[in-house]
C-alpha cells in the first residue's frame, strides 16, 4: 500500500472519529497509583535473555498522571545464525520510557517517549494517543501515533571487545485505531487496527544469506542480506471477552497481518481466566501463529547476486509456532500496609514451539555433511518466565 493511500484512508478515518467525539458527556478517571517490579527470563534457540524492570504510575491531580519505566535486558548465548558464523554474543539493552496522561471530561490524552540503547542499536520513539469513552460509556475509541527513529550498527569485534560500525538509520511511523465495545452485560469486544510504514536500513546485519558455491567444503558460502528500504504493514485484530455463567472469563482473538514484503501472518489466541475468591487469579492461554515467507526470502540462493533483494532472516521464513502459557496472581495486603492499599505478586510461564518450513539448520553436523538444501528444517522450543510484584497506593 502506498504511503499516500494510507494517509488518505487515515484522513477519512480521522474525520469520522472527529464526528464520534461529539458524543462526550461526563468525566473519565485515571487508574490507581501503582508501582511494579518485574523480572523475566527467556531461554530458547541457544539464547538466554533476562530482563528486569521497575515502573511507577503516579497521579498528581484527578486529571494528570505520569508513568515512568526502566527496563534492562541482558542477552547471552548464540542463536542459530550466530552459531553458523562461529561467534557468540553478549549484550545489554536499556529502555527508558515516560508517559504523561491528562484526562478532560471523557477524553484521555497521552504523550510518551521511549528510548532504547544497545551498544550496536539505538531506538527513540515519541508517541501521542487519545482515548474517548462515548455512547453511554459502552464504547471506547483510542487513536495513537508513534514516530520511531533507529540507528543500526554492527559489532565487528568480539562479545567482550566490541568494535561497532554504524550502518545507517531506520525510521517508522505507526498509526493505531482501537475500538472497544460493550455488547451485553457479559460480553465486550474490540477491534484493533494498525498501519506501520518503515524506511531506511531495515535488514538485520547479523544474519546472512547463503548461496551455492561448489568451491567450498560445505558447498555453500554466506553473504550479506540486501533488504528493500521501505516496508508498509497493516494488521487488524478482532477480540472478544465473555464473562461465563460462573465467575470466570474466556477471551478469544484473531489477528490478520500483511505487508508489502508479501508476508501474511495469522494469529489465534484463547485465554481462560479463573479467580479463586478474591485472593488468586489463575489464567491459562493457547496461541497459534502462522506466516508465509517474504518475497525476497530464500534459504539457499543459486548464486550471490541472484536477485536485487535477498534475505535469509528466520523472521522472514515461513513458520508456525504454538504457545501454551499459565499465569497465577496472588493478592496480599488486603487491609493495606502503610501507604499501600493492596498488592499482588504474579508468576507467568510460557512454552513456545517454533517450526520453520523453509529455514534449514546449517550448524556443523560433523561428517558426513548434508548436501546444501537437504539439512533438517530448523525448530526449537523456548521458555519464558516472568515474575512481578505490583503495589497499589
Amino acid at each position, binding site marked *: 500500500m502506498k504511503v499516500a493511500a494510507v494517509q488518505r484512508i487515515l484522513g477519512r478515518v480521522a474525520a469520522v472519529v472527529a464526528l464520534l467525539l461529539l458524543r462526550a458527556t461526563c468525566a473519565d478517571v485515571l487508574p490507581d497509583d501503582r508501582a511494579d517490579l*518485574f523480572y523475566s527470563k527467556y531461554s530458547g534457540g541457544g539464547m538466554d535473555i533476562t*530482563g528486569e524492570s521497575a515502573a511507577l504510575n503516579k497521579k498528581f491531580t484527578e486529571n494528570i498522571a505520569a508513568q515512568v519505566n526502566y527496563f534492562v535486558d541482558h542477552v547471552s548465548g548464540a542463536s542459530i545464525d550466530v552459531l553458523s558464523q562461529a561467534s557468540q554474543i553478549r549484550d545489554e539493552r536499556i529502555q527508558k520510557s515516560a508517559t504523561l496522561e491528562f484526562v478532560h471530561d471523557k477524553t484521555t490524552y497521552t504523550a510518551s517517549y521511549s528510548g532504547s540503547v544497545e551498544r550496536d542499536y539505538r531506538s527513540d520513539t515519541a508517541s501521542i494517543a487519545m482515548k474517548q469513552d462515548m455512547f453511554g460509556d459502552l464504547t471506547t475509541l483510542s487513536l495513537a501515533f508513534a514516530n520511531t527513529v533507529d540507528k543500526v550498527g554492527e559489532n565487528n569485534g568480539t562479545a567482550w571487545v566490541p568494535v561497532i560500525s554504524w550502518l545507517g538509520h531506520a525510521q517508522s511511523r505507526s498509526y493505531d485505531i482501537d475500538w472497544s465495545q460493550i455488547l451485553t452485560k457479559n460480553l465486550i469486544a474490540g477491534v484493533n487496527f494498525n498501519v506501520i510504514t518503515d524506511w531506511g536500513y531495515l535488514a538485520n546485519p547479523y544474519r546472512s544469506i547463503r548461496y551455492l558455491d561448489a568451491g567450498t567444503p560445505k558447498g555453500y558460502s554466506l553473504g550479506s542480506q540486501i533488504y528493500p528500504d521501505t516496508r508498509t504493514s497493516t494488521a487488524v485484530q478482532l477480540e472478544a471477552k465473555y*464473562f461465563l455463567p460462573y465467575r470466570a472469563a474466556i477471551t478469544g482473538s484473531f489477528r490478520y497481518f500483511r505487508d508489502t514484503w508479501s508476508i501474511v501472518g495469522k494469529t489465534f489466541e484463547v485465554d481462560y481466566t479463573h479467580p479463586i475468591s478474591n485472593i488468586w487469579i489463575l489464567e491459562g492461554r493457547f496461541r497459534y501463529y502462522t506466516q508465509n515467507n517474504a518475497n525476497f526470502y530464500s534459504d539457499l540462493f543459486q548464486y550471490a547476486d541472484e536477485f536485487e533483494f535477498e534475505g535469509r532472516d528466520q523472521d522472514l521464513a515461513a513458520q508456525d509456532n504454538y504457545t501454551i502459557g499459565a499465569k497465577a496472581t496472588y493478592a496480599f495486603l488486603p487491609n493495606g500496609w502503610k501507604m499501600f492499599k493492596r498488592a499482588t505478586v504474579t508468576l507467568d510461564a510460557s512454552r513456545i514451539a517454533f517450526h520453520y518450513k523453509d529455514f534449514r539448520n546449517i550448524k556443523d553436523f560433523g561428517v558426513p555433511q548434508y548436501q546444501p538444501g537437504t539439512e533438517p528444517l530448523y525448530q526449537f522450543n523456548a521458555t519464558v518466565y516472568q515474575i512481578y510484584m505490583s503495589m497499589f497506593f
Partner: protein
Amino acid sequence: VLLAGVVVMTAACSNMQPWVKPYERDKLADPIMAWDRDAISAEYLDHIRESREGSRGATGSAGGGCGCN
C-alpha cells in the same frame, strides 16, 4: 458517507440510551474482564514475538530495540 455520519451522529446525540445500564456492568467491571491487567508483561511478550515473527502491530506497544540475535 461522511455526510451520513454527520446526520446519524447529530440526530442521535441528544437521546442516546445505553442498552447495558451502568448498574448492569458489575461483571464487566470485574478485574478478570480487563483487556490487559499487566501492561509491562504484555509489552514484554509482544517484544519477544515481534523479534521472532514477521507480523507486528494491533496488539499494543512492543517497545524498542532490534531483537537482532
